[in-house]
Every structure is written in C-alpha cells, then in structure tokens.
C-alpha cells in the first residue's frame, strides 16, 4: 500500500469522524429557554439572561405547530374529546393543531416500540398503559420530563411514578390510576342472605378467607358463580392484583431479584386455587362475550362479584352491563391477611413524549394542559370515571356525589381512598411481558391440574431468570 493510500484513508477517517461528532451534538430545544432581559438599574443599563419555562412565556412565544397524538378511543374520543378538552386547549393555545390517531392498546404495544427503535414514526404524544410503560422507559427514546414535572411532583399519587422512573428521571405524566375494589351484585347478595350495604359488605368480607366463605354461600343459596377466573387461557391479571396488594410481585423492586417462586407467591396462587377446587368461579375468559353476558345478566348465571380497577366503572355503565343499573355496590377488596392492605392496582395509563418529537414544547403544553390541571382531569373523571393522579383534585365535590348505577352509593370516594393506599410492588417493570408470559403459562398448568403451584412457578421462575440474562 502506498503512502498516498494511507493518507487518503486517514483524511477520509478524519472527515467521517468530524461528521459523526457533529451529528452527535446536544439535542435541540431544552425544556427551559434563556431570554435576554434588559433593564435600567440606578441609571445603568444591565443585560441579564433569565431562564423561563414555556408555561410562563408571554403570549407571542407560546408554542405553535402540529402535534400527533396516539391513543385508544375510550380515552381519547370518549373522554378527552367528549369532555371538550381539545377545544379548551385550542382556546389557550390557538396555534397548536392536535391530530388524533386512534390506536388500540395492543396496537400501541406493536407500533410505539417499533417507532422508538426505528428512530422515526413515533407520535408527539402517546397514551401508554402502566403495565407496559416501564418496558418503554427502559428501552429508551422517551423524553425526560423530570424538570417539567417538578412543580407537580408532590401532587401526584406516589405509586403512579414507580414505572415512570429510571435512574432518578421521570419519563411520563400519569393520567388515571387503577385502584382495585370489589364490585358486587346487591340482588345476588340479598338472595344469598349476605349484607348488601357497602360498609357491611366490606366488614363481612374482610379477608380472602371471608371471601371464600361468602362465595360458598352464594353458590349454595343462589347457584351463581362468585367471579370469573379462566383456567386454560388465564393471563394472570387477578393473580397480579392479589400479589400487588401484599406488596409482592414478580421481582423485588429494590434489588431486582426474581420472586416468582417465592413461598408467598406460591401460597397466593394456591389460595386462588381453592376457588377452582371448590368450583366457585366461572370459567369465562375476561373480555370475551360469555364474560360480558354473565356481568350483564339479570338472572342466573350471574357473576356476583368482580375484583377490578375503578376504570371498570365506565365500561360497566356504558357497554358491558348498562341494564344492571342500581344493582351494583362497591366494597373494599378483601385483605390477604387480616389487617393487611385492601388496596391494589390494575392497569392505569400515562402520557409519554417520544424524544423524536419535532415539537417538544407543544407536546408538553398539551400534556400539561390535559393532565396537569385539576380542571381538566376532573372534567374527564366526571365523564368516564378515570380517577386522576393529582391529589389536589380529590377535594372536589365530584368525590362526594352519589351514583345511581351503584344504588346511590358514593363510589368515587372509595376509589380515591384506595388510590392513595396502593403499596409499592414489583409487578410491572422493564421485563413485564416476559414475566407475565411465563407466569401465565404456570397458572394455566396449575389450574388445569398439569402441575402443582410450586412446580409450575419454579419452572416459570427458572425460565424468567434464564431469560433476563
């Protein structure tokens, strides 16, 4: 090789290097802007550089442009739009155009990570369910919102920020929580000779043991099933709720250690197994027609109770069981052990802003307007029952109102109370899909009698541990 060749190569490498360095320069548009301010102090002109956040910018400097929003219809069309939030937003930010693109949650799970990893194609704002949030936070590609969240941070319910955080930074703005309660049919309880008043129900069914006894009574007296818990296609949502209320999960949130086969986890699964053994639960799979039919039924077979998060409220009223108005009550979920927590979480959602966004100021303006203000979150709560994560909103009169679907019971205060008591647990996390997948198979194997709870969970744990490496 001649010297000339080497020279050529070196020059090319240097040029490429310079391009690479230039391309990796600092990301554009910081959260806060530095503004030059000139004032006269004691006869002298002083020029200062002051940092201002977009929210305090004068009228002329409000963000402008178009933002694209991804989310599912129940949240976007039936809640944000139905509550008139978009119009209000445009009244304050007339120069931001919000383009809504509807994606079902399962479509978000396919398209958002693809767009994040591909480096293009992501929306400016995306609605994400808490179950999968941590996966995307750890994947990367989401905008760090820590500075923007600062003013509101103490006002947000603690547990909503767990999945949002990585290395001390926050990557989401929480919307609704998933406080788990026990919905029950007053008519079935009455027929079974059980109390029907919510306070009495909460007192009578105080633990999962009490619950088992109540379910036996319901079966004997009315012939109805207590709740639905599918065997062969179980996807472990109920199991997760019972783990979560005990502060347990698939892993230890502090050490990251996998706890899928811990003695407590095995005992919890065996406890749920008693309901199968005694044939107290329906085999209908959640979110399929037979399940809807049993929830909407006016005569046997009825599902007498439902342990589920508060967002179920609007689904029941609007399309699953609108004909059962006045027949439902809301009690606290049973504690695992006497005196234990009667609060758990299922699902919930947040907004994230992908780093790819060309217009982070407008995107944040939208997120802040919709989820950072009591007025907006309360209006959406009034429409669809998605419980806000802003503590300041809980003082509103909405939380004192009775609800005719629940025979006049004030259910909102129950939701808010549970939401404030949800313990920290390692259920959702950066590897939720993998853990939920293996554990679901374990539950299916146990439920259908192929394996004991211990064997099944041991195998799942081994698979997960190998998979995490």
């Amino acid at each position, binding site marked *: 090789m001649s010297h000339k060749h080497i020279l050529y190569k070196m020059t090319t490498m240097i040029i490429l290097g310079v391009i690479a360095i230039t391309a990796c320069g600092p990301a554009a548009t910081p959260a806060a802007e530095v503004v030059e301010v000139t004032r006269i102090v004691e006869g002298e002109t002083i020029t200062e550089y002051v940092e201002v956040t977009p929210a305090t910018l004068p009228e002329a400097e409000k963000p402008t442009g178009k933002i694209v929003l991804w989310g599912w219809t129940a949240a976007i069309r039936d809640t944000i739009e139905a509550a008139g939030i978009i119009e209000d937003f445009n009244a304050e930010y007339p120069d931001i155009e919000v383009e809504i693109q509807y994606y079902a949650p399962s479509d978000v799970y*396919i398209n958002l*990570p*693809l767009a*994040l*990893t591909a480096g293009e194609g992501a929306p400016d704002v995306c609605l994400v369910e808490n179950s999968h949030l941590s*996966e995307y936070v*750890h*994947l*990367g*590609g989401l905008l760090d919102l820590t500075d923007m969240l600062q003013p509101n941070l103490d006002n947000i319910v603690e547990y909503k920020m767990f999945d949002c955080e990585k290395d001390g930074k926050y990557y989401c703005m929480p919307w609704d929580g998933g406080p788990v309660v026990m919905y029950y049919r007053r008519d079935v309880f009455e027929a079974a000779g059980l109390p029907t008043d919510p306070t009495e129900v909460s007192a009578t069914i105080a633990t999962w043991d009490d619950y088992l006894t109540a379910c036996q009574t319901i079966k004997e007296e009315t012939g109805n099933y207590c709740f639905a818990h599918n*065997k*062969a*296609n179980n996807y472990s949502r109920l199991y997760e709720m019972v783990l979560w209320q005990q502060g347990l999960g698939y892993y230890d949130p502090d050490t990251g250690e996998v706890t899928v086969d811990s003695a407590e986890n095995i005992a919890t699964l065996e406890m749920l197994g008693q309901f199968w053994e005694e044939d107290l639960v329906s*085999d*209908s799979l959640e979110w*399929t*027609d*037979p399940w809807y*039919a049993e929830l909407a039924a006016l005569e046997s077979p009825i599902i007498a109770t439902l342990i589920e998060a508060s967002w179920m409220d609007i689904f029941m009223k609007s399309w699953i069981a609108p004909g059962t108005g006045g027949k439902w009550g809301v009690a606290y979920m049973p504690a695992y052990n006497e005196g234990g927590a009667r609060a758990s979480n299922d699902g919930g959602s947040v907004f994230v802003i992908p780093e790819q966004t060309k217009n982070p100021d407008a995107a944040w303006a939208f997120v802040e307007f919709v989820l950072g203000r009591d007025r907006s979150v309360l209006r959406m709560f009034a429409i669809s029952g998605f419980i806000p994560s802003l503590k300041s909103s809980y003082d509103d009169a909405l939380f004192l109102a009775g609800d005719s679907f629940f025979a006049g019971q004030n259910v909102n205060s129950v939701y808010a109370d549970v939401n404030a008591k949800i313990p920290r647990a390692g259920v959702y996390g950066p*590897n939720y*899909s*993998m853990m939920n*997948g293996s554990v679901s*198979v374990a539950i*299916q*194997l146990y439920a*259908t009698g*192929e394996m004991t709870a211990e064997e099944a969970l041991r*195998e799942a744990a*081994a*698979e997960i541990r*190998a*998979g995490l*490496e």
Partner: protein
Amino acid sequence: MARGVVVSATNGKRRELWREIVRHRWAYVFISPFYILFLSFGFLPVIFSIYLSFHKWKGLGPMEFVGLKNFTYLFDIGGKAFWQSIQNGIILFFMYVPIMTFLALVLAVILNSKLVRFFQGYRTMIFAPYVTSMIAAGFTFSLMLQQKGGLFNNFLNMLGLPGVPWLEDIWWARVSLCLLVTWGWLGYNMVIMLAGLQTIPRELTDAALIDGASPVQAFFYITIPLLRPVILFSVILSTMGSFGLFNEVQALTGGGPMRATLTTMVHIYNVAFGNFRFGRASAQGYVYFALIFVFTLLQLRYFGREE
C-alpha cells in the same frame, strides 16, 4: 508478456459485458425494483441478523458482544418455549397438511374433470378464503368456537352432542387452529394442484380407462405419480407454513393454552418485539432456518426422487 495478454483478454470480456448491460439498460431498470426491495428488506436484514445473533441488543442503545451465548441459551431452560414451538410445528404439520393436501388434490381433480358445471364459480369460492384477511377470519373463528354460546357448540348441542372446549384444551386448540388454517389455505393449494393437473395430457387417463382401469385406479396410478412434483411443492410450502403460522395464531389463540399453539414465528416475534431481545431472536431465527432447511432436504430426499 503472456500474463499481460490474459489480463487484456479479461478486460475485453468485461468491456463486452458492460456493453451488453448498457445495451439492455432499460430491461435492467424495469427489473430493478424487485432487487432493490429485496436487497434492502430481504437480504440486508438477513445479513444483519447474523451480526445481531452474536450480540445482546434491545433495539436501541449500544450492542454488547456475547459470543455464542444466544445459541447456548437455547439448550437450557431458556429454550423451552422455542423447542415447544418447534414441536408444535411438527404436530400441526401432521394434523392438517395430509388432510389439506388430499382435499386440495381431490377438489382439483373434480374441478378439472369438467364433470362439474360452473367450475369457475366453485374455484372462486374455494379460493376466496385465501384472499380474506386472516386476522378477520381468525377473529370470526374465535367467536364461533367459543365454548359458551359459540356457533359450533350450539350446533353440536342441537344434535344432542356435548360442547367441545375448542380453545380451552391443548389438543382441541390445535384442532381449532388446523380448522382455520385448512379453511384459509385449501384454495391456494387447490389452485397449485389444478395448474399441475392441466399439464397432464388427458390421453393418458383416457387410455387407462379404455384399458379397463377404474377412475379411482386412474387417479392413484396415473394422476398422483405424474403430479408428484406439484404435490411435493405444495407439501414443502405447507411445512414451512406450519412453523411460520403467524396471523392465524395471533388472531385465534395467541399461542395458548399452555403454549400448545405457539408457533416458532410467533415465539421469535415475542422474543424480539415483546421482550426486546433482538440478538436472541436473531439467533433463534437462524436455528429455525437451519431446522427448516433440514426438514426440506429430508422431504426432497425421500419424496422427491424419481422412480
């Protein structure tokens, strides 16, 4: 000096080749879209996967070189779901491919015999499922196969038979998947057979019939042997198809219950886009490729030889 002559000769050939290319430039321009698309979306990802299979990568951020770890991972508890999916592919293959291939062949022979009037109409009807969205079909099947209140079980109950746990049992779930796949792919295979049949001279069958063979004998001793390469082609495609089932599984069973219907393609997809283990998924893709390659070779070896 001799060397120089050789060089100039090759140069001459090269120049000639280049001239040829320039002369046919428009032909190359017209066929280029396929090659450009294939290179960027087919060939490059395949090459990149080799590189990926030796790395740990979540789709974003730095890649970590891990040597053969993604491959050795498969030979421990971590590979359980992968081998289960391979096993499922083999089971599904034996469950539906013989039946579907035979049905496709019989239907093709009937439609080819011109005994049926309006055979174009029937051909269209049998082929129609192939052009239907498999997601929509799978969803419809899942509604019809519901244990409580599903159309299939209602029908069985009407006949006084007990309902079947179509999607709630390991074996019935596989049967359900095979029903959907056979329904969806029968027409495609039938058209392949029909095309094959049309290349067989009618005189051969006619001669056999005159010599006293029954139509069934003519079918088994004349049509099937002559159609062997076409049948083999269809069976090989179905083999790859059994392991590669994706839309059908996603729409009908999601791979459950207990991974009984988890196909290799769905599993690899889950590893990559559900668990964000792109290196591991690439390694599994290559092992999968190797296995399919062996299966196909075996089929060619044992069923493809001329007698």
